[in-house]
């Protein structure tokens, strides 16, 4: 059974990822830099590629930032 876990890890199916908060911070930085460099709003995939991670990892990290929830509560008050 340990064999199967090893098989999957070697297969690259499992890889240790960075913590959500670290990733969220790195994503925010990378977004700013790439937006400035390219002079336009970047896509999700471009950001994931820039960070060297899969979309699957990037999305939860973006959720860990507060920009969405704060909108209706703060921006319009």
């Amino acid at each position, binding site marked *: 059974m340990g064999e199967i876990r090893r098989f999957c890890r070697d297969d690259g199916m499992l890889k240790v990822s960075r913590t959500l908060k670290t990733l969220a911070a790195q994503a925010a930085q990378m977004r700013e830099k790439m937006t400035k460099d390219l002079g336009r709003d*970047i*896509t999700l995939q471009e950001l994931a590629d820039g960070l060297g991670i899969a979309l699957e990892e990037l999305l939860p990290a973006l959720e860990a930032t507060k920009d969405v929830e704060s909108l209706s509560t703060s921006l319009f008050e």
Partner: protein
Amino acid sequence: MKNQMRIFFDAVSENEAFARLVAAGFFAQLNPTLAEITDVKTAVSEAVTNAIIHGYEGKGGTVELFCAYDENRLQIEVADRGIGIPNIAQAMEPLYTSKPELERSGMGFTIMETFMDKMRVESIPHFGTRVYMEKDLKTE
């Protein structure tokens, strides 16, 4: 390319962030810009929050989220089987809220209208509410 999904989840505030993630994850396949996906997440968030706190008045139930795309056209529906809205025109007015005691801004529907290209509300008192939204992605 066409694709669709329909999810049913418990009407608890813990699932608001989850609903945003589901919508973002589904539409991520179209490679939207970060601004576009934030618009979509914000609209979904407002609609799901409404279902939980207004539709079910925080007492729980099941929220439905439907997401689909056909090429660059996104379609979203958020539905509940809660108390419904007696006066939809009034509910959609900016700043109108039936729950000022919860410190609601009354801007949920206005945000959905602003961030999506189309928005429509159907509601029957004591039966439930369904919000339809559409958006065209500019990315090719």
